[in-house]
């Protein structure tokens, strides 16, 4: 294995996925280096969310290969993919709505550091400091005793991100992390995501519609359209690319 391959966190080859007649992924190839921040953009229906769902095991691909940290994914279920070190957030934030903020974070820690079949209360008590530390990291410690149903949309998104981090992933898949948030909230969240990812050396792949956020955060951008990779490059290259301008702004006359 040469040095270049060893540095690849995620490699996708010829990935295909159809729903009936609709081809969502039509042969996607991409490669993301370890520690890289990669944005995936593209018009609606380009296959961005499908890509994330295939990578996280929520959908089974029709064809193609996915390697995460050199390990090949073969039809694993989401819970198995998660144990390989792939964490994800959902387009609509996905938390445990009838539990407190504290219990949500506790669940995340318990799923990695504890035995889920255990009846020992001490296992939960021992996680208390870790849980509070992580709630501080995402500035939700003051809401620890609130039920998630009662907190704001933005706080829920932050909580979800924090919970995913607590499962100690190496590769983080974020599906529209800032969707539905206010402008300042968006930038706060994305700064938090970048800080934590850099600190822990995580590989980040995120789907995002807010172009400001994309150009601020991404080191590399993949543009998808009609289930294919349409262009790839640094933010500067993508900004210059006339083909990309076309799919976003419509064909020039």
């Amino acid at each position: 294995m040469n040095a270049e391959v060893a540095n690849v966190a995620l490699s996708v080859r010829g990935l295909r996925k159809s729903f009936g007649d609709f081809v969502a992924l039509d042969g996607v190839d991409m490669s993301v280096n370890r520690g890289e921040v990669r944005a995936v953009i593209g018009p609606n229906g380009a296959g961005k969310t499908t890509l994330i769902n295939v990578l996280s095991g929520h959908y089974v691909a029709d064809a193609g290969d996915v390697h995460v940290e050199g390990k090949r994914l073969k039809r694993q279920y989401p819970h198995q993919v998660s144990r390989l070190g792939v964490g994800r957030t959902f387009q609509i934030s996905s938390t445990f709505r009838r539990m407190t903020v504290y219990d949500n974070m506790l669940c995340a820690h318990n799923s990695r550091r504890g035995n889920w079949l255990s009846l020992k209360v001490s296992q939960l008590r021992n996680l208390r400091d870790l849980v509070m530390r992580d709630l501080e990291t995402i500035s939700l410690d003051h809401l620890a005793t609130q039920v998630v149903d009662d907190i704001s949309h933005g706080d829920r998104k932050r909580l979800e991100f924090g919970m995913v981090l607590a499962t100690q992933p190496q590769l983080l898949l974020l599906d529209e992390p800032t969707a539905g948030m206010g402008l300042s909230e968006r930038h706060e969240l994305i700064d938090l995501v970048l800080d934590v990812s850099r600190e822990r050396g995580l590989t980040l792949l995120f789907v995002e519609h807010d172009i400001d956020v994309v150009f601020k955060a991404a080191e590399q951008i993949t543009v998808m359209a009609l289930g294919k990779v349409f262009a790839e490059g640094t933010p500067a290259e993508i900004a210059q690319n006339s083909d990309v301008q076309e799919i976003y702004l419509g064909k020039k006359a």
Partner: protein
Amino acid sequence: MVTPKDEIAMAVPRVRDPYDINWLLTVGIMIIMSALLLISPTLVVFALIEIMIFALYASALNLLLSYSGFVSFGHAVYFGLGSYGLAITMANFGWPMWAGIVSGPLVSAFFGLLYGALCIQLTKIYAAMLTLACAELTFAVVFQWFEFTGGDSGISGHVPAMLGFAPEHFGLIVLVVVAISIIFLWRVIHSPLGLTIKAVGQNPGRAAAMGHSRKHVQLVAFVISAFLSGIAGTLFGLFHGNVFPDYVGVLFTIDGLVMVLLGGLYSFGAGIYGAIVYKILDNLVAHYFQYWQLVIGVILIIVVLVSPSGVSGLINKIIGRIRGSDER
């Protein structure tokens, strides 16, 4: 004067520590129940025994309904198989009484594992229908396999009713067994396992993304629930000294569901409160009024309207389950 210790206490917001059992409350309830059993007239003692047994059965069902996100529409199977486990091992196999008593809950747990493994393959309303199918199948076998189960005349005479004790003394035995079982259930729900069961019940997609298999977790919850229902059923078999196909029948299933609903979903006490209210209504109203089921129906409607918290919760949950979550 603020000590360093206080500062730490202030810096870390108070997080509810729900893991401890309230022993004062537990012991208090047990003393009151014991007193009631010892001073009440026999008919009331019978009612108290039924309440305790059904409180355990409904609490076991509540583990599934309120926490695991898996609806069982045939839970009387695991209740009734407790009674049948006791009766068949003693009457057909000639086992001693202690072995029969141990067999009851184990037979229930075994069928919980068997049917549970089948039913968790599906989700939402389809899984619930499968639990109903398993229950119908069991009822048909129990009802028709005359040589083995006694068919519609059931099995009796294998054990004296109430083990031959005076009602109040049998009531004390039931009290201790039910209390231990419900404390065990509390422990389960407030343990790491319970947290995982709640996580899967509230959001199987997120739980999977954390590394939990919905099927594994729900199966464990199902077997625990079947086992505890089997304890209740075994006690019921000992109480009456017999067993009939009704014990696995649809009416006993509905009793359990109504109790949990009455008690209010998403609370630990749902089964206990529900059993108390339902059995009191059952006994009182039936005593004074010929069409007692009609009265209970009306009371149920009033309770639902006046205190919608539990019931609206169920409706939301059922709607959510029919619409489904983004789970594979």
